[in-house]
C-alpha cells in the first residue's frame, strides 16, 4: 500500500538528513511522473542516488529506496524497520485504530494473518479458477460485439472487484459504491474528500460487521468478525481495522495492474502474438508483466536510530520502498525496461515481501493470468482507440484512468 497521507506543514529538512540527499522526486504526483509513471520510476536509477530523502505535496517526507537489495532487506527485517504507524489512511489520533494485519508485527502478526490465510491460500485460489474464468468470459460477451470497450470500466474494474466482493462475502451490487470509495481514498489527493469517504466507509463496514456477527458465512469478513487471534477475541476497533484494510487493499491493485498491462498489450501487437503462440510460458509472462507494471509502494518506520547503507536514520523516520523502481533495478534485472518473458527467475517485489507480503498475491496472479488468456483468446487483435490519450491517476496505486480499446 502506498503513501497518500497528507503532509503536515511546510517541509523542513531534519537535522540528520544530509541536504545532498534531499529530493522532491514527485513520485505519484508530479506531471513528469504522471506522463509515464513506470518509465519515470525506471529512469530514477540513472538520475538519482539509491537512497534519497524525498518529500511531496501529498505525501510525508520519507527515505525512498530504489534498490532491490535495500527494499528486500528492509521488508524482511521488522526488528529494524516496522510497519507500525505506516498506514496511509487518515485516522483520528484521539480514536486511533490499527490497520490489521499490516501494522501488527511478528510474532503477533501471524495470529491475525492465520485467520484469513486459509481463505486466500494457493489451494483455495486454484479452486476458484473455473468460476473466475467463466466470469471473465461473461464480461467479454458483454462488449465483444461492439468492436470496442472502455477496458477499465467494462473489464479491468468489474472482474477483480467482483471476485474480491465474493471472497469477502459482500454483495456484488455494491461495486459502484466501492469503486467510488476506493477512488476517494486512494486517488482524490484531497484531505476533505478522503475524510468524507472515510466516514461513509466506516458507517458501511460497521453495519456489515454487525450483520456478519449475527449471520456468519464462509466469507472473509465473517472470518474476521468471528476470528480469535491467539484464542482472544478482537476488540471492535481491531475488527474494524482488519476489515477496513482488506476492503481497501483488495479494490484497486489488480485493477490498476490489468489496466497497465492492457495498455501495453494494445501497443505491442507482436508481443501479444508471442504470448498467444507460447501458452505454456504463461506463468513467466505474468511474472514479467507483474515486474514491469508494479503498482504500489511499501512503507516502514525506523524502529531505533540505525545506520543503513552508510546513511544515519533516526527513530521514527519514514521509509518508502519504491517497489516499481526496485523491480527495474539493473543489478538484478539486466536491461530492466525490456519486457523479456524468458528472464532467469528472480523473485519480484511486486507483492512486497516478508511477513507483510501481499496476502492476495496468489489471487492476483491467477486473475492476471486468466484475464490475459481469455481476452487474447477471444480478442487477439486490438489497439488503443485512435486519438485517445492515456492518462494516469495520481496517488499510491499506479495505473491509467481510462483504457479505451478498439478491435
Amino acid at each position, binding site marked *: 500500500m502506498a503513501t497518500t497521507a497528507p503532509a503536515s506543514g511546510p517541509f523542513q529538512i531534519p537535522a540528520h538528513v544530509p541536504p545532498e540527499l534531499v529530493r522532491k522526486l514527485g513520485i505519484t504526483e508530479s506531471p513528469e511522473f504522471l506522463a509515464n509513471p513506470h518509465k519515470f520510476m525506471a529512469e530514477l536509477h540513472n538520475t538519482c542516488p539509491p537512497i534519497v530523502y524525498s518529500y511531496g505535496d501529498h505525501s510525508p517526507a520519507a527515505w525512498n529506496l530504489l534498490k532491490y537489495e535495500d527494499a528486500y532487506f528492509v521488508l*524482511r*527485517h521488522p*526488528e529494524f524497520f516496522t510497519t507500525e504507524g505506516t498506514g496511509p489512511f487518515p485516522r483520528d489520533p484521539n480514536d486511533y485504530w490499527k490497520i490489521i494485519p499490516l501494522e501488527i508485527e511478528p510474532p503477533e502478526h*501471524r495470529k491475525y*494473518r492465520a485467520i484469513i*490465510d486459509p481463505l486466500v*491460500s*494457493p*489451494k483455495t*485460489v*486454484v479452486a476458484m479458477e473455473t468460476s473466475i474464468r467463466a466470469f471473465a468470459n461473461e464480461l467479454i460477451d458483454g462488449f465483444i460485439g461492439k468492436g470496442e470497450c472502455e477496458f477499465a470500466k467494462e473489464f479491468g474494474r468489474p472482474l477483480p472487484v467482483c471476485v474480491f466482493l465474493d471472497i469477502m462475502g459482500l454483495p456484488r451490487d455494491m461495486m459502484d459504491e466501492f469503486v467510488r470509495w476506493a477512488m476517494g481514498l486512494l486517488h482524490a489527493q484531497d484531505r476533505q474528500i478522503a475524510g468524507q469517504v472515510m466516514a461513509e466507509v466506516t458507517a458501511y463496514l460497521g453495519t456489515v460487521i454487525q450483520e456478519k456477527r449475527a449471520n456468519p458465512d464462509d466469507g472473509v469478513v465473517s472470518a474476521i468478525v468471528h476470528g480469535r487471534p491467539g484464542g482472544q477475541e478482537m476488540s471492535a476497533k481491531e475488527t474494524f481495522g482488519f476489515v477496513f484494510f482488506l476492503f481497501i487493499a483488495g479494490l484497486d491493485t489488480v485493477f490498476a495492474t490489468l489496466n497497465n498491462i492492457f495498455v501495453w498489450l494494445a501497443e505491442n501487437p507482436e508481443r501479444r502474438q508471442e504470448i498467444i503462440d507460447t501458452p505454456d510460458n504463461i*506463468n513467466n509472462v*505474468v*511474472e514479467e508483466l507483474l515486474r514491469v507494471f508494479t503498482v504500489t509502494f511499501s512503507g516502514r518506520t525506523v524502529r531505533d536510530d540505525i545506520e543503513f547503507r552508510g546513511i544515519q536514520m533516526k527513530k521514527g523516520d519514514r521509509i518508502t520502498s519504491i517497489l516499481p523502481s526496485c523491480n527495474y533495478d539493473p543489478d538484478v534485472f539486466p536491461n530492466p525496461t525490456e519486457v523479456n518473458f524468458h528472464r*532467469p*527467475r*528472480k*523473485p519480484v517485489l511486486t*507483492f512486497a*515481501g*516478508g*511477513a507483510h*507480503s501481499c*496476502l492476495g*498475491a*496468489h489471487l492476483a*496472479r491467477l486473475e492476471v493470468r486468466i484475464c490475459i488468456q481469455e481476452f487474447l483468446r477471444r480478442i487477439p487483435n486490438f489497439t488503443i482507440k485512435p486519438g485517445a490519450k492515456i492518462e494516469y491517476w495520481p496517488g499510491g496505486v499506479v495505473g491509467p484512468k481510462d483504457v479505451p480499446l478498439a478491435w
Partner: protein
Amino acid sequence: MLLARSRRRPDGVQGEFTMALVTYVQHDGARQDVDVPVGDTIMQGAVNNMVDGIVAECGGGLACATCHCYVADDWSEKTGEASEVENDMLEAVSAERKTTSRLSCQITMTEELDGIVIYLPATQF
C-alpha cells in the same frame, strides 16, 4: 561431516550461533554449500545467503508455497513430516510435487541435520 561452529550470522544479526551445513542444489545441478545457524529454517538459510531458487514471498508464514524444496532421500526421515497445513500448501506448488517435497520454511536446522542436501525446483510460481 560436522561443521557446527559459531560466528556472526550472515544477515547481520549479532550473536554467537552454532552453524550447520546445508547444500542447496539448483535445478540445473549447481551446488552451494551454506552455513546456516541452528534454529534458523532451511528457507532462511537460502534467503539470507542469496541462494536463488527459493522465493519465500511470505517470509516463513506458511502462506505462499514459494519456498518449495525436495529433501534428499537419505535425509527425509530426519526432517520429520509435513504438518497438515503444510501438506495443504504443498498441493499448490508450481513444480512437480514429489514424496520428498517440503516447504523449506518449515524445516528448522538442528545439529542432526548438519550436512543436509536440499534440491530446488525449477519454478516457485
